[in-house]
């Protein structure tokens, strides 16, 4: 699809507007992380500001298992199992952190989870068991040269490898899917499964209690729910999926650093995604992150995805670029200055505008307009078959 568009007459425009496949893979796994963040923060109202610790746990678990550094689990452990192990460790961690943190609420809860996460961040950054240079983080070593396989463990026919270089290539219907594209679909499968699982929890009686806690915790207690246990359970579930997301990230990138897994700004990105997509809508977080990444890639030349800068350069031509505006500033220099790697500025502005004017986020606002979830309300509106 992407290649069809790239080979079409509007290829330059396509390359400018659409993110690359690699970015899209990132959108998937990080979207899952944002969804898991929304699961706890958006539905129970407890802002888990240290959520990155679970993401990092998942990522580090996968890499350490592949490097044979985890006792009992050799480098040959199937990727799916490593994901699960990472998730279980995250559950244990969530229980530990949650036991003390859920005695607090509001800003204090956000701060204590942030505190815990930063303790782990600093610890991992200084622990030389995980990598020779713990500040840069571990990478998958030569003991695990082949790609990580997603699918049914042990059955080659039902598994495909992921990774930019290590992914399997698949011939399908006369076209070949590259390793990155295969990764996109395989990771997408896992993310989809996780999303359905969380969706299931939200719509179960358990999820109802979570929403009750957000709306009015005192009343939920008065009705007779032990909210402490419910919060802890929700936190553990959320931690599990955050770790799966981290595992997918590590499996695809084959390396992780404390800065892009354990650091508190990683949680900040998830927060960004949830708010833009819609707080407390679950799926919205993924769209929020997609929006975020698209804007970032469009407005900065990160990746090979083109974006506005190369497009403008090609469109305007060298003479226009060299034309001077004020003093020695050329037009080329100006767009370079404004568009080269400063996407955070625009994302920040968009974010501030969203908080001010679209507090329900993309999906939240859409749902409010349509009067129901997208899948239910849109057909009803189009064909008027209201029941």
């Amino acid at each position, binding site marked *: 699809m992407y290649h069809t568009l790239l080979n079409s007459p509007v290829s330059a425009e396509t390359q400018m507007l659409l993110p690359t496949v690699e970015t899209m893979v990132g959108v998937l796994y990080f979207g899952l992380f944002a969804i898991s963040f929304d699961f706890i923060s958006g539905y129970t109202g407890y802002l888990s500001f240290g959520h990155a610790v679970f993401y990092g746990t998942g990522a580090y678990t996968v890499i350490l298992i592949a490097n044979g550094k985890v006792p009992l689990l050799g480098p040959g452990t199937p990727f799916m199992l490593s994901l699960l192990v990472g998730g279980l460790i995250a559950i244990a961690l969530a229980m530990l952190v949650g036991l003390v943190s859920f005695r*607090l*609420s*509001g800003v204090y809860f956000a701060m204590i989870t942030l*505190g*815990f996460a930063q303790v782990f961040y*600093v610890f991992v950054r*200084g622990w030389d068991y995980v990598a020779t240079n713990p500040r840069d983080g571990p990478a998958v070593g030569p003991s695990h040269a082949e790609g990580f396989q997603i699918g049914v463990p042990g059955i080659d026919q039902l598994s495909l490898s992921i990774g930019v270089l290590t992914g399997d290539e698949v011939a399908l219907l006369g076209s070949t899917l590259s390793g990155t594209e295969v990764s996109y679909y395989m990771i997408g499968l896992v993310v989809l499964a996780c999303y359905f699982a969380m969706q299931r929890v939200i719509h179960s009686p358990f999820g109802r209690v979570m929403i009750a806690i957000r709306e009015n915790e005192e009343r939920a207690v008065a009705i007779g729910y032990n909210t402490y246990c419910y919060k802890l359970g929700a936190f553990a579930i959320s931690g599990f999926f955050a770790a799966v997301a981290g595992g997918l990230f590590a499996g695809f990138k084959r390396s992780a650093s404390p800065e892009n897994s354990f650091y508190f700004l990683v949680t900040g990105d998830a927060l960004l995604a949830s708010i833009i997509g819609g707080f407390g809508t679950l799926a919205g977080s993924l769209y929020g992150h997609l929006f975020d990444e698209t804007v970032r890639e469009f407005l900065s030349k990160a990746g090979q995805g083109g974006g506005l800068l190369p497009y403008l350069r090609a469109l305007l031509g060298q003479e226009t670029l060299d034309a001077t505006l004020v003093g020695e500033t050329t037009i080329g220099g100006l767009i370079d200055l*404004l568009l080269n790697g400063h996407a*955070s500025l625009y994302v920040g502005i968009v974010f*501030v505008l969203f908080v001010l004017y679209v507090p329900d986020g993309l999906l939240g606002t859409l749902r409010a307009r349509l009067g129901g979830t997208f899948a239910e309300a849109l057909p009803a509106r189009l064909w008027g078959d209201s029941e």
Partner: protein
Amino acid sequence: MILEALAEFLTLSELGGVIVNGLAKSALYVMIASGLTLIFGLMGVLNFAHGSLTMVGAYLGGLLMVVTVTGGTAPLTRLGLFFVAIVVVFALLTVLGGAIETTIIRPLYDRPPIYQILLTFGLTLVIEEVVRIVLGIYDLQPLSDWQAALATKPQFLREPVALGPVSAGWMSLFQILLGTITVVGIWAFLTKTRYGLYIRAGSEDTEMASALGIDVRQVFTVVFALGIGLAGAAGTLLMWDPTWGASVPLAAETLLPAFIVVIVGGLGTFRGTVVAALVVGMADAVTTWWFQNAIQFTGLPELVLFLVLVVTLIVRPQGLFGVEEVGGH
């Protein structure tokens, strides 16, 4: 090995040095955190942009110093210029803070507090990128400390001074002096002026204060503006400190300790913030000494700071001097 280190740690000169260092760090922490605590105590806004504004203050202060100081400027003139720079930066950022409050924070007061966190978080992104763009124009490295600003520091501040058996840096003494001035200044403002009375009344009960005829909205604006101004003043001081320095990551580096100090001290009490800054500063100095002399773990001081936060929240969730109700318990 540990016992030897302990014996060395307990000698007068080492312990004295650690205490002076700890006081200097406490002075920095109290300067970074006081603006945050004023804003949070009164308005309940956890200002995530505080660190970025400290960073802006560092650059502005550095800019003023670099422009005015030449190689031949006498040390005392430099010191005088530095105080002028602090005042100017304070004034500029106060204006900026007032503008931020009236334009984008004010519409959010009737929303849940989380939106203020979100908004200020977005603000950090914008501020940091704008700074990066400006630095890009002048070919400065955003990630490393601004050396030209550091170079405006008078020579004698780099030298050690002997206080009896204890050897301390002039810079530490200078920081302690400025920290003390800040604390005394804010304390006097809060307890001796009419406006301080309004602020304390507003912190305790906003509705009651406005019922008594205090224009709480205006007080909010003033406090937010002053808080941001203090952040800028702290930044100006940090610009001269070689372990901090003016750089873009300074924003995150100062934000987290500031949070720790404010939360440990208890939201809404200035006294708590001062005590917490002392505790955190001392913990930092002690663990820094141990890291340098005995224990081979790079992140030790940072780790201990966050452990202080976590332990305080477990043992005494409202902070050292905090009141139960503030901050949504």
